[in-house]
């Protein structure tokens, strides 16, 4: 029995008096592909942002690759993590954003090589060779010298995926990566992610409104509502045979809105 790669224990996150996450606990096993679904405001994006250290936590513990994310030991006591500790922990995690967040002043190639060169000391030539492999994989090798502004949304998102992969994180977070795309561009991004899921043993957490994709992609689906897990299980169970009333009504609404399941 291997240990979980992510361990979330009694996590609380409040914005002012509003509790977004209220005593949340779950584990993720290495290599697992997890889909987080639920109505907006249910806290699923907040979980990814907390794992990427973009958001602080109010209470609880998170363990990543066997190490505390927001806490560290000093003189045998547990204290809040400092910037150096966070920096170390972030090297395990990569993230792809809804709005791509590419660096507009850098070329596609530079977007991908910047971090490996700066944070890992990878020699430029090696970083560029690796970036070209990744661009090949996402089907954009011919765009290496383009600026992000010259790309379509789907192309931008594929570059963003390549940028995150270049650091070889053990955990990848996908935050509604197709929500900002025109419908006809969604497919090309999902194809890349499907291949990624099939070909790597990376642990992946996916927040999405694409139920059909979640069904295909995930080993396990977590349905969130009001900062808590209402129901979880294999996609077949959640999508075809949900037990909880909340899950059923959410899926009914999604189908009524024209989404594929």
């Amino acid at each position, binding site marked *: 029995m291997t240990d979980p790669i992510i361990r979330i224990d009694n996590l609380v996150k409040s914005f002012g008096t509003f509790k977004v996450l209220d005593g949340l606990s779950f584990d993720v096993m290495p290599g697992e592909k997890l889909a987080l679904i639920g109505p907006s405001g249910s806290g699923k994006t907040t979980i990814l942002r907390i794992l990427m250290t973009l958001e602080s936590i109010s209470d609880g513990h998170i363990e990543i690759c066997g190490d505390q994310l927001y806490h560290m030991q000093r003189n045998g006591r547990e204290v809040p993590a400092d910037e150096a500790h966070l*920096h170390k922990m972030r090297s395990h995690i990569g993230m792809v954003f809804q709005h791509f967040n590419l660096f507009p002043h850098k070329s596609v190639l530079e977007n991908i090589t910047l971090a490996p060169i700066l944070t890992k000391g990878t020699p430029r030539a090696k970083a560029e060779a690796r970036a070209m492999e990744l661009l090949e994989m996402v089907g954009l090798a011919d765009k290496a010298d383009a600026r992000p502004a010259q790309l379509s949304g789907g192309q931008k998102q594929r570059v963003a995926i390549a940028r995150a992969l270049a*650091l070889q994180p053990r955990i990848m977070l996908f935050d509604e990566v197709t929500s900002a795309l025109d419908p006809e561009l969604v497919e090309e991004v999902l194809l890349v992610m499907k291949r990624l899921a099939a070909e790597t043993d990376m642990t992946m957490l996916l927040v999405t409104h694409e139920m059909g994709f979640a069904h295909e992609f995930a080993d396990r689906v977590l349905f969130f509502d009001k900062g808590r897990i209402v129901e979880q299980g294999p996609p077949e169970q959640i999508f075809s045979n949900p037990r909880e009333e909340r899950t059923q009504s959410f899926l009914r609404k999604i189908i009524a809105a024209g989404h594929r399941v």
Partner: protein
Amino acid sequence: MGDWGGYLSLILQGALVTAKLTVMGCALALVVAFIAGLGRVSRFAAIRWLATAYIEFFRGTSIFVQLFWVYFVLPFAGVTLEPIQAGIMALGLNVGAYAAEVVRGAILSVPRDQYEACIAVNLTRFQRMRHVIFPQALPLMLPTFGNNAIELLKGTAVVSLISLHDMTFQAQVVRAQTGSTLIPFATILVLYFLMALALSRAIRMIETRITRGLDGVR
């Protein structure tokens, strides 16, 4: 009357002093603007406070008074400056305070998702500023820097008060010796205008260079 060639060369000598004050003053202003502007967005309260104090003080008092302090009062504290040094210092610190706010504003206007992307690819705070935030903020600063530089050029006229022989000072000399106001002051009017024109052209050139390949970014 008569020796207009000599008078013109006097004014041109003054123009040289004005140009020198402008160039050196701008260089100093640029350095302090970046230091104070970055200080304003520092995560350390003490640094933010220091930068704010500097900016508010130099924006809130007159350049005229600042110049007198630098030239006539600092010697009592054991710091004696040449007139040209005092002029450069007063102008640079004064305009630098305005430009620091430009630096701060430009840095804060870089969208938040750029900071988040930097965290996601694990850049350090310094790398984030150096490679991502600052390069995007710089093109936003330049147009206002151009304004600041022209303000500084025009501000150089006050240094005649500490007996620096700048263009305005020399025009006064010519006026006193010839009794003509129109000719020396028309001359320096044109010269100031040409210098300002050169400055804004130079800034425009730098702008085009820096923003090259950034079309469609904003």
